């Protein structure tokens, strides 16, 4: 077995040093009824690289890569061009194969990356501070709600109907088991919901998404002010981090906590994971934050260095009194995010955001010209919702047969509701001919 360096001679010498005659003797504390005498039956034995690669490539071959066809899917995961540099740097073994930086003297690489990542996330969201990442946007959203409960000592969360249903369900699952109340507003593809009507003296937070799952962008400044007046926090969810290059950031609108998905920068679609949750807050809430935090300090020689800090919030110190049970986060995905953003810089990031908006405007205009298609959004970033004269899931299947990934039927996210709504995204990766192909095929199948 190519990954196992011990030779038979090594094993004999080591067993002798230990003072036993076989490896099986070392398993003697295992009850004999549970101790197997040989490898598990019914499973294949070891295989070489070539064979394994062949098997996995065959499975990969039974998928249609989004980049091989015109693709307009978003709804929480976005296909962007990732510069070659990102993946090459991420694959450096010193980043890839390191553990959580518990020994700071030999982890300054990871720690400085996290410090820079936290700064980038704070800048993007317009917030004071950010943590070193969460699992993904949905878990960040649920953790934000629980953090709001701790801060306000209240127990109710009001979720906008524009919140991604996976984020809503993740939060509701936590609510059920952890013991807080969630009022989830009905799906609001055209907006117009009255969130403040749900806010009472027991409301810890209001959760909105910008752009929302239907692509609408809104200014939440007034909502933030109204929440504040009622003693509730405003949590703003962002599933398309690139939108922060064009839109007024949640921090400037008055958000207390921002929970976002960072996949758009540096990270592949990868069928839904691993992604990277972004979590940013106002300075005064730092000590109620979940997750790892990296802070600046000095070493014994007075030189600047970085360490994990405020760990008295965390499970390995506080055990049952921790702010969260999170341990591992999304370090490598955060690194990919950070490298991509470093390459883009101020100019690249804002231009890429505008380019995405331009593509979406172009697509919306093209689709408005298709008979039976109605664009719902007046204001959007790179994603919007249309209504079709027939079932959107069926339309998407027919488009797939023509090798076009024509958007996400809302019914897939909303458990069968909104059967005629289709959510479409356009990014810098979409060409004019992609849009031609979609418009033509849509006209044919409708």
């Amino acid at each position, binding site marked *: *077995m190519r*990954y*196992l*360096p011990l030779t038979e001679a090594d094993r004999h010498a080591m067993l002798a040093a*230990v003072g036993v005659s076989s490896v099986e003797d070392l398993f003697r*504390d295992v009850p004999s009824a549970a101790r197997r005498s040989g490898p598990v039956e019914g499973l294949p034995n*070891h295989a070489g690289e070539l064979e394994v690669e062949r*098997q*996995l490539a065959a*499975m*990969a*071959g*039974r998928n*249609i890569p989004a980049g*091989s066809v015109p*693709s307009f899917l978003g709804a*929480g995961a976005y*296909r962007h061009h990732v510069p070659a540099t990102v993946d090459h740097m991420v694959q450096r*073994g*010193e980043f890839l*194969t390191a553990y*959580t930086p518990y*020994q700071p003297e*030999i982890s*300054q*690489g990871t720690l*400085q*990356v996290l410090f820079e990542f936290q700064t980038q996330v704070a800048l*993007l969201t317009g917030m004071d501070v950010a943590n070193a990442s969460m*699992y*993904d946007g*949905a*878990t960040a959203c649920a953790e934000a709600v629980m953090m709001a409960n701790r801060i306000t000592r209240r127990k109710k969360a009001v979720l906008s109907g524009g919140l*991604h249903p996976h984020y809503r369900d*993740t939060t509701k*699952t936590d609510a059920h088991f952890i013991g807080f109340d969630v009022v989830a507003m009905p799906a609001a593809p055209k907006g117009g919901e009255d969130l403040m009507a749900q806010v009472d003296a027991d409301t810890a937070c209001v959760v909105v998404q910008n752009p929302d799952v239907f692509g609408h*962008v809104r200014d939440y400044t007034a909502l933030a002010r109204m929440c504040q007046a009622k003693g509730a926090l405003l949590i703003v969810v962002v599933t398309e981090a690139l939108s*922060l290059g*064009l*839109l007024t950031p949640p921090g400037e609108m008055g958000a207390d906590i921002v929970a976002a998905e960072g996949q758009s920068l540096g990270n592949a679609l*990868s069928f839904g994971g*691993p992604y990277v949750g972004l979590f940013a807050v106002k300075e*005064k809430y730092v000590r109620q934050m979940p997750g790892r935090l990296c*802070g600046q*300090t000095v070493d*014994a*020689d007075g030189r600047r260095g970085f360490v994990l800090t405020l760990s008295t919030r965390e*499970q*390995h110190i506080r*055990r049952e*009194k921790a702010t969260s*049970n999170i341990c591992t986060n999304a370090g490598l995905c955060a690194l990919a995010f950070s*490298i991509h*953003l*470093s*390459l883009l*810089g*101020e100019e690249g990031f804002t231009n*890429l955001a505008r380019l995405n908006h331009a593509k979406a*405007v172009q697509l919306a205009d093209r689709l408005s010209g298709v008979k039976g298609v109605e664009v719902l959004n007046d204001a959007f970033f790179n994603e919007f919702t249309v209504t079709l004269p027939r079932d959107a899931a069926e339309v998407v299947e027919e488009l797939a047969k023509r090798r076009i990934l024509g958007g996400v039927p809302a019914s897939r996210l909303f458990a069968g509701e909104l059967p005629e709504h289709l959510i479409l995204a356009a990014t810098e990766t979409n060409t004019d001919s992609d849009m031609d192909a979609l418009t033509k095929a849509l006209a044919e199948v409708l």
Partner: protein
Amino acid sequence: MSMNSQGRPTGTGSADSAVPDTVTGNRGLQIEEPLIFEQDSPGRCGVDLPEVPAMNLRLGSVKPRTRIGLPGLAEPQVVRHYTRLSQKNYSIDTGLYPLGSCTMKHNPRLNEKAARLAGFADVHPLQPVSTVQGALELMDALAHWLKTLTGMPAVTLAPAAGAHGEMAGMMAIRAALEHRGEAGRTRVLVPESAHGTNPATAAALGFTVDPIPATPEGRVDLDAMKAKLGPDVAGIMLTNPNTCGLFERDVRAIADAVHEAGGYFYCDGANFNAIVGRVKPADLGIDAMHINLHKTFSTPHGGGGPGSGPVVFSDALAPFVPVPYVVHDAGGFRLVEDANGSTAFGRMKAFHGQMGMFIRALAYILSHGADGLWQAAGDAVLNANYVMARLKDVMTPSFEGPCMHECLFDDRFLKGSGVTTLDLAKALIDEGFHPMTMYFPLVVHGALLIEPTETESKAGIDQFVDALRALAQRAVSGDVAYFQGAPRLTPRRRLDETAAARKPVLRWTPPAEPALAAE
């Protein structure tokens, strides 16, 4: 002085070996690297984008953003920045990384290659299922291996990490209790030696954590455990092999007692690497167990994630498995994504789980096969016992008898020396090794928990052991200053963690502005 034919000296220079103060602050290959924000030149950019067409923005009442504050760098500067930072990290690729309970084993590059196949990496999670049959097949194949290796009938692949898996497992237990009409069972037994995530998970879900003491042999005190059972007990969270590196001999009796009392047995599978392919956890009577794919199945730790923590379930808990999950019928593979109208307890995260980790783990599993996993677990246990045997005369093992994949020492051997566990660990860094896990588990004083894993050679382990033996002997010989000043040969020496926590600086701020002050 010796010279070559061009007159270039070929000798080793003067014998003066003092480390110089350099002009740059760099030390040869150790290069000082400023923050990325300190390398800004406005207008510079590391990507070339097409011209943005003139357009009327469709942002409604939302104002377009003016300035963010991101630095501008060209591509070569970015490459150098991250290359230099990477060189300040210790990693498995660098050397032995014996962090107990973390299973820092070799990360095969085949796994990375497989995860980057366009058919996996470039697939959107909400594509029509007809276009992702291979992705679902891969999830199904991994699920099959995990169920077969554990002997358990059901699995969820959704959790994003081990701690997230614990959450899923304990939620399923809670759902099952609610289903039985016994939601009043709120007490969870957790051994004192448990990972911090266990009590944190149980407490987060509203359970009361009731600690179980350990015996002098480092195992759960069966009688004390039984005495704590009662009609309000939801279950037990037990790590096996435990965090002392020992197999819980009474595990069947523990399982039977918990079941008899109407509770469930959650097993923390962080240490599954010791027994994978040799013991099926189903045979130990468990109801749920998370498997850290980033430990046992070698997906890279990435400096702190991403992980992946699938959970296997017994028949009693299987109906409550969260969405999404893959089913296979005449029409091929499909996904169940909505929990409504079923007993599924809910959803753990967006989309379908850590697909990129599933691919890597399956590549690892297929490479090993049943016979390779058998051998890997055996070698992991042999390596740990060999380390124990070679160190037990100069350090103090906490417990008698064979260990599993990791061996535990406490600081009795340092008593009176003035050297602490931390000092010893820092001196080990100067010898070129990552230290062992320190001060965990909490059941012994000044713990040193060593897990070499199966992917270390005997020569590598011998060098590590020789270094540790020499350090242990030096510590007791009274050379305290050497240890308290360590490490000396690293990019940074000991860092002031107290100052970092007292006045947190959690982000860079431009020098012109005052530093961010706490409100």
